[in-house]
């Protein structure tokens, strides 16, 4: 199924599974076309991980390979170019490797990384710095794992057992977590100190997802349960830079575009995928791609500009509203992929135009 709307094209492929996570496989170079992604399902009798190939033409992605996953695939994060970790609904973390011919092989697994009194606790999110894997779960633990080592490298317990829903690496050794009470905590994983900083979102709305700016590490976007996007500057962490309400239900995933980070994409339980375009807030004389390359110097990110802080930012919904939650999205180059509870995988090409 494919429809044309301007230059953007949308494919909606029904895959007979509710998709919880979807991730592009990192390309061989930064400039190559992304063509392979993996998806993980949830809420099925038999959950699976699937590898998909996206053709260059406006066609549906085609399934290359699938492997069973005994529990919900709550998150997928690539550790290297061809290996990724999955966080399971039964609290386990597994490491998979793409082998030749597009097949997947399970390389390693840590079972019951997350657990509470009654048994296993779901792992809710993963992050990786290319070396280690950080995993958070509903038991409130932040666990650092090293691929190849059975032993848990670090285990940070959260007093009170408030579920952690999101985790990202802010720097190679600093991890930011978000929990059900809306608290963001910054941990230095090298030292045994308590959290370096605690950021508390207004009204204690649960933080469902976090995304780090690809080049400006102090800039973090958090998606809340009330459907509002909160932008934080980690250097002055007492107040968020801005809070913009856009979704009418909890946000499920936030992504900065990796190479044009003045664009941001979110999806939510209200069945929308929103495209946030802050490029108008930057200096108009500059070409958009130049912004991203200028890391040095005094240039500030468009996300910190006053226009954004005042909430004047263009958001457009880029799919026909689905009546069921969109659980996940990922974007690479000009192609956005998303997975939904209506058992469809969306492939949206030329998303930036």
């Amino acid at each position, binding site marked *: 199924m494919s429809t044309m709307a301007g230059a953007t094209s949308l494919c909606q492929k*029904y895959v007979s599974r*509710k998709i919880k996570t979807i991730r592009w496989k990192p390309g061989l170079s930064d400039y190559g076309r992304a063509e392979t992604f993996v998806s993980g399902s949830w809420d099925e009798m038999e959950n699976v991980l699937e590898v998909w190939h996206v053709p260059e033409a406006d066609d549906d992605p085609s399934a290359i390979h699938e492997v069973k996953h005994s529990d919900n695939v709550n998150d997928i994060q690539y550790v290297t170019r061809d290996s990724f970790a999955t966080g399971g609904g039964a609290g386990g973390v597994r490491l998979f490797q793409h082998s030749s011919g597009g097949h997947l092989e399970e390389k390693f697994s840590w079972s019951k990384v997350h657990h509470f009194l009654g048994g296993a606790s779901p792992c809710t999110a993963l992050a990786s710095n290319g070396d280690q894997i950080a995993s958070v779960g509903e038991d409130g633990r932040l666990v650092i794992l090293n691929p190849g080592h059975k032993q848990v490298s670090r285990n940070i317990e*959260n*007093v*009170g057992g408030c579920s952690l829903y999101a985790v990202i690496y802010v720097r190679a050794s600093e991890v930011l977590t978000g929990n059900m009470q809306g608290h963001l905590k910054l941990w230095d994983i090298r030292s045994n100190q308590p959290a370096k900083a605690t950021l508390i979102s207004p009204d204690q709305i649960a933080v469902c997802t976090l995304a780090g700016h690809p080049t400006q590490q102090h800039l973090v976007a958090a998606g809340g349960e009330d459907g509002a996007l909160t932008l934080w500057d980690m250097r002055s962490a007492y107040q968020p830079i801005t809070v913009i309400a856009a979704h009418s239900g909890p946000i499920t995933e936030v992504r900065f575009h990796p190479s044009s980070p003045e664009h941001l994409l979110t999806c939510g339980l*209200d069945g929308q995928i929103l495209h946030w375009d802050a490029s108008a807030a930057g200096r108009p004389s500059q070409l958009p791609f130049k912004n991203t390359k200028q890391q040095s110097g005094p240039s500030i990110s468009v996300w910190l500009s006053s226009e954004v802080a005042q909430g004047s930012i263009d958001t457009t919904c880029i799919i026909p509203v689905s009546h069921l939650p969109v659980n996940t999205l990922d974007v690479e180059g000009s192609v956005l992929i998303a997975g939904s509870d209506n058992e469809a995988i969306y492939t949206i090409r030329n998303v930036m135009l």
Partner: protein
Amino acid sequence: MEGDSKHSAKTWSIPDPTLASGMCGTYSGINTLMVFPNRPVHHNDEPHTSMLTTAKLYQIESFSWLWGRHMRKLVNEAVGTFIGLQKAVVDVETDNCKLILVKKSREYRSMIQACYSEISEQLQSMKEKGQTSDEEKELIECSGLLSKMELILSLFEIVFIETKPGSIVLSHLISWIHQHFPECLDRKREAMESEHPHQHPVYWEAVYGLVLQGRTEDVRQMLASHPNAGTDAFLSIDELLRKMPVYQVYAGVSEPEFTVRWYHWQSECERRLQEGHFTAYHHLTILCQILCGDQSTITSLRDLMDTWYHFMVSTLLFTNPTIKFFRLHAAAQDAISAMRGEDMTTSLDHVLLAAMEADALQVIKKCQHVLDNNWFTAHITDLLYHTLSLRNEQNSLAKLRESLLLDYASDLLGHSSHWQVGILYLDHCGPSGIAMAQLALHKITLTDDSRARKVIHMASDRNFDAVVDSVCKVMGRRALSQNRLGAAIWWGVRSRDSSFTSHVAHQILHKYIAEGRFESAPLLDQLGPAMLLSDTLTFLGKYREFHTMYQDGNFKNAASLLVSLISSKLAPEYFWPILLLDALPLLNSEEPFISSEETYELMYCMHNLSQSSSKSTKQSPMETEAAKVSFLEKEKEIRLSLSNNLARALMHEGTVED
């Protein structure tokens, strides 16, 4: 717990002897039944040894062909079309409504077709691999079902949605036949691809088949390949075929005018037949007899038409091309008796016959019977309901539509992962739909936070506040049982459940007494108005506030807050000793933070406490013996500090007054 219901048979048995003496069943979900052995117990029965044997619980779930890997696409694609339809019908003016209904009906058809072709592809690949399995059998069954559904739906579209009553229907019926009986085209291809088409065994079969569907261009192409195509007989039939009038609604030819042309053309055919144009060619004679509408010739060719409806349409094409809709039924009856007699008709035939009688209720009823398939009946009833309400006819279908949608929705809710789709259908089922949606959302198993969040979102979208509260309560109690007090209190606050939050707050206080630290301090610091949910929670929040003030060095305010916590009786009694101990450093400080008034309050509290602790240990506010001992140790110190502070405060107050 085994549930085996993968058979489509209507009755099946559970092979368990313990069930023989009687069983009991109870609904365990929306669509699941829990069955267990149950023997009536009499009072004078002695406990029987056999009762001690293990009894099994059987979970019985409905299984539908819709849950298959391919068919699931229908479920999810159809819900989009369904909701789109409900919205569009409300928004759009009546004129465009019919177009929308036709469009939506075609959407349903195209998803059935897509599903069908996908299954065919898989069957093909299975055949190539040489696999024969149960799966293949199932797929073949499914594809049969899908093609029937498509056949019925497209006829349904012609009869009920697209045409007005009393209009001419044949052109639609012909395209319906074209779509579902493409075999004659296959024969044509087969014949034409051979070296000498006219010698191919199916050549004439193909010609007849094509002409019976009114595909005159294809017939002419085939005849042109005949070596005798240049003879007069061939040229004559070619002319007849070329000139055959075709009635089209928008062709600009009125119906009477078309009728005149038609009779003129057919009498020309008869003339040429009688004049013996085709005597040299037996096949062409038959062809011309068909064109003349010769009933016996058409009947003799019935083997080329698989079904009575094909036969009916072909007959009508040459005998009564302007047939009105209301005469269709008689034609159908004739066709059935000509084909094989009425007693041999299948259930599919009954459905189609009912459609041709324009008896919508009968169609729905038969579909329900035959297809074992709520998906189809729910959607066609919905389409029909909107069509009828469009014509302002008295709509008796509203109730039927609602109940069929409810049936379908309950099927979906019974499935482990289609519950969300089920709720979407219930939105359009009136008050009983709302009631069922509430019940269903209540009953959904909350496996993890993200599922709970989805249930909460769906419930709050529909203003089901009670459901939201109950989900939060369940999550809160679960967190408590997992000893996650912070999470429990968060869910408790969300569910606005004061007794539960009190209970958790007490637990947090006990834990503080035992361990000297707070569970989830940041949460408690930021409670805000939620604090007022219960007294204990208010106390907990305020007590945290005291800690914060104390840590910040704001001793004056901290002291007055502490005293007010004690004097307001907000604090649970077991916590009084802690509060008094907390007051100790404030009492001993250089500067008097606690006024004489406040000191009296504290002294009163102290008095009560020591009195009650000297009474029976059971009612003692102090938790444990150890706590009691540690308090008694400190008691002297506290009393001393109290009197010291009182003295200083009185002096201080006296000086200020001067």
